[in-house]
């Protein structure tokens, strides 16, 4: 029973990583850039949802929509102001810009909401905890919602990128930006749409993250952001099902490592597993190996 308990906890943590990793992998897969500000967009999304719930007294679903809309705008603005001018620059320059953007968002949040942590209201996800085996195993409502949200988002994203015109344009841009633009695809617009979707996902991830782990402060997004990035790499960055698988595995490994080996070494175990996987399969679990022409 303790094993099952840990497994549930692991899946619950993993599903949070997975949902953040989806945003990372989506932007990376299409724009070919690591958006390190993703974790901070998540934090902003959570703060906006918090304000909508606590200060403006909106119902949970409306708060979710408000947060998603605000994050979408934020994502597009960030892309337009910070990343678009660097489209032709070296990828390292874009990476550093993303890190700078991450700090900018954190400090902005510090200015607006202050450093005191806020506790995210449990009323956001009002689903009771499910008890199994006579109360020995408990699955919280937030975990259930997160898992369902993960599956829905994964299927929706896959369908979107393979079926719709915009989705196909995204895949074209991802494969060859130059050729895509020769074929009449508006590269800038496509990348903007990618950021808009990625940021809307970030708002959802922020709300789910803070519903499971209800502390909200300007640095809330950074550590889960790094873990989710790890999960995305683990599953094969750029692959949508890979992000989901990587996230879940990472969460389960982390909880098992902490429960059966040591809480002190929990994070070290996670990253050790990552290193081993990358040594054996450098493109990640579900990643496509890329051959480079010499």
């Amino acid at each position, binding site marked *: 029973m*303790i094993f099952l308990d840990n497994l549930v906890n692991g899946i619950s943590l993993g599903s949070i990583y997975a949902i953040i990793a989806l945003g990372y992998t989506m932007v990376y897969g299409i724009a070919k850039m690591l958006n390190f500000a993703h974790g901070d967009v998540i934090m902003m999304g959570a703060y906006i949802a918090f304000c909508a719930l606590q200060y403006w007294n909106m119902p949970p679903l409306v708060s979710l929509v408000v947060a998603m809309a605000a994050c979408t705008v934020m994502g597009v603005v960030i892309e337009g102001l910070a990343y678009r001018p660097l489209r032709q620059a070296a990828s390292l320059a874009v990476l550093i810009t993303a890190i700078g953007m991450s700090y900018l968002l954190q400090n902005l949040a510090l200015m607006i909401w202050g450093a*005191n942590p806020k*506790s*995210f209201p449990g009323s956001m996800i009002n689903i009771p905890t499910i008890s199994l085996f006579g109360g020995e195993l*408990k699955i919280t409502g937030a975990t259930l919602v997160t898992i369902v949200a993960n599956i829905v988002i994964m299927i929706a994203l896959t369908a979107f990128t393979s079926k719709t015109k915009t989705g196909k344009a995204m895949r074209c841009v991802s494969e060859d930006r130059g050729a895509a633009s020769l074929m009449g695809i508006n590269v800038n617009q496509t990348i903007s749409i990618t950021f808009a979707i990625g940021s809307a996902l970030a708002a959802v991830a922020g709300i789910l993250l803070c519903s499971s*782990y*209800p502390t909200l402060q300007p640095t809330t997004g950074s550590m889960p952001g790094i873990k989710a990035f790890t999960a995305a790499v683990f599953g094969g960055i750029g692959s949508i099902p890979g992000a989901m698988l990587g996230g879940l595995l990472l969460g389960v490994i982390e*909880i098992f490592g902490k429960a059966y080996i040591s809480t002190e070494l929990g994070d070290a175990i996670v990253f050790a597993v990552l290193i081993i996987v990358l040594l054996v399969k450098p493109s990640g679990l579900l990643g496509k190996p890329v051959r480079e022409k010499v």
Partner: protein
Amino acid sequence: MFQMKFVKDVMKFVSVCDIFKKKIMHETQNGQEKRDGKAGNALKKAVFCKKTRREQKCGRKMSIIHFTFSKEFEYCIFHWEESSMKKFLAMALVLALCLTSVAAMAEVNISIAHIGPTTGPAALYGLATLHGAEIAVEEINAAGEFKINLINEDDEHNVEKAVNAYNAAMDAGAQVILGNTTSKPCEAVSAVAVEERVFMVTPSASSEAVIQGLEAGTYKDNMFQICFTDPNQGLASAEYIVEHELGKKAFVIYNNADVYSIGIRDTFVAKAAELGLEVVGEEVFNDETTDFTVQVAAAQNAGADIVFLPIYYTPASLILQVAAAREYKPIFFGVDGMDGILSIEGFDTSLAEGVMLLTPFVATSEDEKVKSFVEKYQAAYGETPIQFAADAYDGIYTIVAACKAAGVTDGMSAEEVCEALIPVMPTLTVDGITGTMTWDATGAVSKTPMAAVIENGVYVIDAE
């Protein structure tokens, strides 16, 4: 105030003179050599003439280098060498002090500097200590006998800025420091203050390094604490739990990336073993941890009926939420870091129901002094004072009690005040709003700990 500034100016003047004197000695030697090589220079003649004039005037041999400085400096150094300036200044100083102390009569003026983070992430604590101190100062000034000039300097909970804030406070004429509010800045400032011989009382810096000296096993003689030292919180918690039979099986969840948490945990576990309280397990986390399911599950599976949390309130709030989701209801026992859990925005305070914490101060106490303090604080700042404010309030009263016992008089320098207060501190007993306090020579306080329990969203003193 005035005489402090005057003394400072004189000291600065004397030290400037001293530097120039050394420089002169050096340059004179060099100059002599040069002169020997190139005699008959017109310039030197002119200088020499001047020099002779001076010699005639004061009747004493002066070194030639004096004339290379501006007129003002010449004058300073000239007098310096005459050694009359020093005497004159000393006399003027004594006169000035006499005059002002006669004017002020019995009232003793003392400048106390509060140093704490009044902005930045730890501003909550720094503002609380400042406000607590302000209320004490107001009361003491109204009562007469002592007239406190409270100087406030912000350290932003930053080590470098703390030392700057200390220097600024000393420049502003501080004689005693009430600070720093937080441990790390306090460690840095106290290391400077012990060298410069400035007396310090910290309201709330609780780490042991604050009072420890540079060498192992030694203590800073000028540094005293109002709050418990971290390790003492662990001892007192274990004693309290055993004495009041709160539980049989204890479990500790602590932050192994934080010296505060580790320090309390170590002494708690040692004391628990000594008192026969069984510690059935321990789990750790770090500053980045937000998932506490493993730690709480471990406590639950170990069948612990008391969970000791020597941690800050943010992770504690997460632990309480996980425990509630798992329907795990032991007694959660925290220390001073738990103070603040009720003020987290959006936190469902019903989750903290029944949480106990070791604290020297409970705002809802029926004690007359506490009541009056809380009323004044609420009237002035519109909020209920936290422990830090009470510590600072007691800190000001402790400094005044020590000054009274040591017979501190008007116009003593910071160093004189420091040397006068150090020997009286171990003899003092201060009956404050955080308990009756005594100190040993190490600077650690001893007072009876109280435990508060959270009932209906407020702290109340544990009835037992």
